């Protein structure tokens, strides 16, 4: 298995606070990785470093498909290959759903408007909201907005998709529809790195689960290893806290 994302010696500090400490991680092409852990453990910071929404300390190295993730010429290339879905959707409120999805393919991939629209409609059908194409994000439910955000990320045909707590801002009855879309994606060969609090989803979909705490990777393993037989006491404490509430 070739590693599409390679992270070595990744650290990040906010002043004296160490958000990430010496992270080493390799993620294979097509792999679905779920990152779990308490809030403030550095999960989001970790995936936001992968497309350089967060800068990281000197000495760390991240590559995506062999391209170094650092400020400069290559960054646009990395970001075009790495899609991201945010907790708060971050759709563009002044554009229709269709335009939200068409924008990046037209500007970055130089796709024609006709081709971009065709593709956007395909993707909307795929995430189950073809009939909402002309609406504005403000008129959609949270679950629908997040599905648009997934379609928008997919429109760039990324090789890696990062999900930053994609269901945490949703009403409980809408979590399922977003997880369904993500579950369907997991089978398509795109590499997915998912920060999530949905343990059932992680167990079911992940090839590998990473447990983080205090800015470090504490334990990594298959869902069965992490959820049924965690080795580290800190992992056990966390899982018993979130699973038996």
């Amino acid at each position, binding site marked *: 298995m070739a590693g599409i994302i390679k992270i070595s010696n990744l650290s990040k500090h906010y002043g004296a606070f160490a958000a990430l400490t010496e992270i080493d991680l390799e993620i294979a092409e097509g792999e679905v990785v779920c990152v779990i852990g308490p809030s403030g453990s550095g999960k989001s910071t970790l995936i936001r470093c992968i497309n350089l929404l967060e800068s990281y300390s000197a000495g760390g190295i991240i590559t995506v498909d062999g391209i170094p993730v650092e400020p400069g010429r290559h960054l646009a290339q990395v970001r075009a290959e790495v899609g991201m879905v945010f907790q708060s959707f971050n759709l*563009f409120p002044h554009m229709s759903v269709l335009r939200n999805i068409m924008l990046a393919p037209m500007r970055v991939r130089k796709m024609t408007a006709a081709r971009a629209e065709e593709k956007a409609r395909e993707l909307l059908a795929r995430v189950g909201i073809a009939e909402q194409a002309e609406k504005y994000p403000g008129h959609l439910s949270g679950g629908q907005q997040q599905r648009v955000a997934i379609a*928008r990320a997919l429109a760039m045909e990324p090789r890696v998709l990062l999900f930053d707590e994609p269901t945490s801002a949703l009403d409980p009855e809408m979590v399922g529809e977003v997880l369904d879309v993500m579950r369907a994606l997991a089978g398509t060969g795109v590499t997915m790195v998912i920060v999530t609090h949905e343990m059932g989803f992680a167990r079911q979909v992940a090839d590998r689960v990473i447990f983080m705490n205090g800015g470090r990777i504490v334990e990594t393993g298959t869902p069965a290893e992490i959820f049924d037989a965690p080795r580290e006491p800190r992992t056990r404490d966390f899982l018993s806290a979130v699973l038996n509430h």
Partner: protein
Amino acid sequence: MDLLDTFFNVPILIRTFPLLLAGLAVTIQIGATSIVAGLALGLFLCLVRLYGPRPVVLLARLYIDIFRSIPLLVLLIVVYYALPFVGIRLSPFLSAVVALTLVSGAYTAEIFRAGIEAIPAGQFEASRALGLGYRDMMVDVILPQAVKIVIPPLTNNCINVMKDTALASVVAMPDLLKQATQAQALAANPSPLIGAALIYLAFLWPLVALVSRFERRMGQGTR
């Protein structure tokens, strides 16, 4: 009645009305030119201030602070009466436009900055994550949203610039106020001044009402 004859002398008003209208045309020319130039300068300053390299950011901040502090009348007099000593001789029209633009640009820059900073960080992050370049991000995502936010304060600034054009009368510009003071001197009656005040009111009141409407609509939150 004496008071009416003094302040609202209809024959004098009728006689001087064409002069006042000619003055209004000059006022509008100065105001409109300064507003457009101030918008361009303000947008440039704002982008430089937000995203330029460190030394340029400091320069932009210095500029903005200086031109928001200096009284416009002082600046205008410096431009018109002091610059000729270093060989820069500007016409009254250009002096007024330059002074108004320099100051309006500083205020406009701050208005744009507030507008851009009001856009949630997630909009920038989503744009970057999609691979959009800086230009595309600003043109397609950030500025269209910022413009909606800045329209009420920008209109306010336009009103201020229009009002401040009256200062041009001190550099012998035949604007509305200058025409009115000259007509007053000729007629030995202050009615033209009242006429000018009414014209300013008739011209600017609708703009003020427009700003209130914008603000009310923004308040209702059309998101």
